[in-house]
Structures are given as C-alpha cells and as structure tokens.
C-alpha cells in the first residue's frame, strides 16, 4: 500500500528530530528513546487522525510532547508521594546522555519549567514558527512568545553562573545555585 509506505518513510525521517526534541525535554537519552518509541507506536495506531497535506513533523511532535507531559505529571506525583512534596529530582545529565560538552546547557534546561523549556526548544532549536509551536503546545501564540522570552532570560541567568570566571563570586554562585 503506497500511502502506508509513505507514512513509514515520513515517520522514519522525523526520528532524528524527535530524538533531539525528547533529549532536550528530559535530559536523558534512554528515556528520550522510550518517548520516541511510544510516539511512533501511538502515531502508527492513530494514522487516521493525521490529516494528509498537513505537517507530519508537527503532528509527531505534538504526540511526543503530550506523552512527555503526561509522564512528567505522573512522575512528579510519584516523587511528591515519596518525598514529601519536593519537585522532580534531577540527576546529572552528563552521566545520562554521554554528551559531555553540552552538560551545562542540558542541566540549565532542566531547571526551566517544562512549558518554558518546550517552547524554547521548539522555536529556538527545532525551527518551528511561533504559530506552529503554539499549535503543538495547544496555547495562544502570545503565550508561546512570552514563554520563550522567559526561558531565554532564565537560561541566560543560569549560564552566567556557569560562565562566571571570578573566584570571589563563589559564595554568590552557591546561593544562586541553591535557589
């Protein structure tokens, strides 16, 4: 069936970008691969809901994003139950991804609220327009713009800490890291 073959090819072609999006969202390559696998399974099972002629990549990103958000909420509940209300604990991204050179950036990303993180990645790295990102995140275009701005600002703060060269600023670094 040619249509189905096209579907498989299009999904295959989207895999590298889906993985990059997933790793940026969760900071963990194994979990990212699981997210992508679940996304492909869901997309395959719901092929009928894809409108031919629309953006296949955006459709797959939407599925992955929704799955991540559901999982994130579930995990946070589990952690809160076990840990008396503290937010999701982050382990070292370097150890998990194997991409040491981007360790600081990955860690900084994980300190952003998920809605800001996804907005920044979609617009700043995946190359979606504000309109497409708004569609994927099911919110208004203005909301995406403000999330991207806040994300950039927070990221700049976090990376300033990492880039701070003067040793006398060490106490400040410790304080700000603890926030």
């Amino acid at each position, binding site marked *: *069936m040619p249509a*189905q*073959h096209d579907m*498989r090819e299009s*999904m*295959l072609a989207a*895999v*590298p*970008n889906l*993985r*990059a*999006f997933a*790793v*940026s969202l969760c900071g963990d390559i194994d979990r990212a*691969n699981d997210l*992508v*696998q679940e996304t*492909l*399974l869901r997309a*395959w099972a719901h092929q009928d809901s894809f409108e031919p002629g629309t953006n296949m990549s955006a459709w797959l990103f939407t599925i992955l994003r929704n799955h991540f958000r559901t999982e994130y909420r579930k995990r946070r509940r589990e952690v809160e139950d076990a840990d008396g209300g503290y937010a999701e604990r982050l382990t070292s991204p370097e150890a998990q991804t194997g*991409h040491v*050179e*981007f360790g*600081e*950036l*990955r860690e900084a990303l994980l300190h952003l609220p998920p809605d800001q993180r996804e907005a*920044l*990645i979609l617009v*700043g*790295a*995946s190359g979606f327009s504000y309109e497409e990102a708004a569609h994927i995140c099911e919110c208004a275009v203005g909301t995406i713009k403000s999330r991207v701005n806040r994300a*950039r*600002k927070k*990221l*700049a703060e976090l*990376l*300033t800490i990492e*880039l*701070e*060269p003067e040793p006398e600023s060490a106490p400040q670094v410790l304080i700000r890291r603890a926030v």
Partner: protein
Amino acid sequence: MPQTEKLEESPKGRLSRDVQRKIGQQLRAMYTDVVNEGVPDRFADLLRRLDDKNK
C-alpha cells in the same frame, strides 16, 4: 561551550541581542548533535515490523 565570556543583560532586564544569539547557537548545537546521530536501528526495525504487520 565558551567558558570565558560572561553573559550580560541590558539595563531594562531585556536580554541583549548578543546573549540571545549565544543561547540560540548553543541550543542549536546541542540539538544538532543528537539529530546527527540519525535513526538508531531500533526505530527502523520497529517501523518495519509495524509496516509488515499491516500488509
């Protein structure tokens, strides 16, 4: 990642173009690093199996 440069913020609390550009560059570099890994076998195999099942 450049370690020696300090990211500056303009007085109004808005990020300078320079900072925005640096953040964008780093984000895209990190992202492209994963994209360049291509399609791991597990996903090609998965889609092949799904495709075969429907035939």
